[in-house]
């Protein structure tokens, strides 16, 4: 049977127009990109993690669900300072249980934003977020700026769905009504498809943004900026002119801005640029982050409305405290300031620097995941994950912070858990039981 309007759980685009036809051992997928299709094939893949496992003498041994869950609960309940990492490849509902468990245990709860757009969240705290949903950009934007991002690789349908090609109310001719500027040190496919490619030196985004604002304020930037950024001031002026000529501009920032030297200051300056354009120059702009991971925006949303901070929440004193660099995952692991971890739907061992990954492998770690990879390899207890949007319902937040409710097209393959939310709830109940006994 063909199921329509399935939500894709891969990147922040949360495409909601996927069609699937599931047969016994195969799945046919329409409308999804290469990445999306890759994940849809997981439903029928050979390598799916199907059994709960515990590492004994360095080797994984299949055990019953109860035994694995008991062991996982024991690790968390005995920890003096656990790190709960609520990855992005799962629903807000599952992440929410993790936040409550972190509060109960006095641990630290973090999510993918910490190794992704965390600096963007911090920049927003410094400068505010002049933004809109992607729908507004579709209907209005006649200038699209991709800053430090290559959506053709990280969010393949961004250009066709939101950025470049869609025909909107005031952009009836689609691509022909839009100009594109790409700011990237690398000549990416996105850069090649743009009207203007600003090939700046790595780690000079802040200087470029600062110079653009200086030009907007009627001054000439200090001459050293040409050498620092590798961009001529005349080209910066051309870029400012393109921005001023636009009726409505849409800036999409990626990790090139948020993860290079400068971090949240780069983002803060980009936000200031948008505010200045909106306030004093007769044009309108929006800015949004290209959230590469599925529900990475969701954790920021729910953590903020539940506890006041978007990520890196430290519950040691019973209430949430927030200080990236001190209470954030990579720093806590590098500084050996936690003694156990729960990782849900994220590959922390594969995607944190060596010092952090190494320590994570040394401490007791519970991992909930669907396929083999570095983090499952480093775990002490491995619980099979359920694939959100395929096998259970729930909520994701799209890249522009719009919540998207998703429904499954098949069931959880396990009789012991219906969803990651279910697994987290069962685990939390066991943890409470152990704590109250002690």
């Amino acid at each position: 049977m063909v199921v329509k309007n399935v939500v894709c759980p891969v990147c922040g685009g949360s495409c909601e127009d996927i069609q699937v036809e599931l047969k016994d051992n195969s799945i046919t997928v329409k409308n999804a990109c290469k990445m999306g299709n890759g994940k849809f094939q997981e439903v029928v893949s050979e390598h799916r993690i199907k059994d709960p496992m515990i590492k004994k003498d360095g080797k994984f041994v299949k055990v019953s669900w109860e035994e694995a869950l008991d062991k996982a609960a024991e690790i968390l309940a005995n920890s003096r300072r656990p790190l709960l990492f609520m990855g992005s490849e799962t629903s807000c509902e599952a992440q929410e249980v993790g936040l409550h468990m972190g509060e109960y245990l006095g641990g630290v709860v973090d999510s993918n934003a910490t190794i992704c757009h965390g600096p963007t969240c911090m920049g927003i705290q410094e400068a505010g977020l002049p933004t809109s949903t992607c729908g507004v950009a579709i209907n209005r934007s006649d200038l699209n700026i991709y800053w430090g991002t290559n959506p053709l690789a990280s969010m393949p349908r961004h250009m066709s769905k939101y950025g470049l090609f869609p025909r909107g109310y005031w952009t009836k001719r689609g691509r022909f009504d839009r100009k594109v500027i790409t700011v990237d040190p690398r000549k990416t496919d996105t850069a090649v498809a743009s009207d203007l490619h600003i090939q700046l030196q790595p780690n000079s985004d802040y200087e470029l943004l600062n110079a653009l604002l200086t030009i907007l304020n009627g001054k000439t930037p200090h001459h050293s900026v040409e050498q620092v950024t590798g961009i001529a001031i005349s080209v910066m002026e051309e870029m400012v002119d393109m921005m001023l000529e636009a009726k409505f501009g849409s800036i999409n920032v990626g990790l090139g801005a948020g993860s290079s030297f400068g971090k949240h200051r780069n983002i803060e300056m980009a936000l200031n640029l948008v505010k200045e354009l909106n306030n004093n120059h007769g044009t309108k702009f929006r800015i949004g982050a290209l959230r590469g991971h599925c529900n990475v925006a969701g954790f920021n949303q729910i953590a903020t409305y539940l506890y006041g901070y978007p990520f890196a929440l430290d519950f040691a004193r019973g209430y949430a405290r927030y200080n990236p660099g001190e209470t954030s995952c990579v720093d806590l692991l590098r500084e050996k300031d936690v003694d156990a971890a729960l990782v849900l739907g994220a590959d922390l061992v594969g995607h944190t620097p060596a010092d952090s990954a190494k320590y994570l492998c040394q401490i007791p770690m519970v991992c909930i995941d669907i396929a083999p990879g570095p983090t499952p390899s480093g775990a002490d207890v491995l619980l099979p994950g359920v694939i959100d949007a395929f096998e259970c319902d729930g909520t994701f937040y799209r890249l522009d912070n719009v919540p998207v409710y998703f429904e499954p097209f098949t069931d959880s393959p396990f009789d012991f858990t219906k969803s990651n939310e279910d697994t987290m709830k069962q685990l939390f109940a066991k943890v409470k039981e152990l704590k109250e006994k002690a």
Partner: protein
Amino acid sequence: MKFLLNTGSTIDEGRLAKGGNKYSEEYKKECAVCWISPEDFDLLGCPEKVKVTSTDGRYSIVVNTKCTDRVMCGNIFMPRAIWSNVVVNPWTFSTGSPLYKGSPVTVEPSDDEVLDAEDVVLKLYYGGE
């Protein structure tokens, strides 16, 4: 030679990672790779494999090379994956986010073996235990 390391997605990295194929040969072929500009590639002596070493010299990783004009002189690019993250600078400037883009690294030709993703975990992170 000193370079600035840029890491990021490639479409096939995404396809394989999201498809749960992180331990496949194909993933290793796509991700255990260092993109080098033609000028720098010549200067290094057109090596098949290079050893990339972290800023503080404590970690290194051997990967295959790809000569391409997509990167500028003085920069290298590696798809985001366990190989690149071994040498990413773990300092976060008090932001929680390590320097995935723009870490200073050293690159030299190498004849050593390119490790599988699983071996990176076992050999580097577990010290062969």
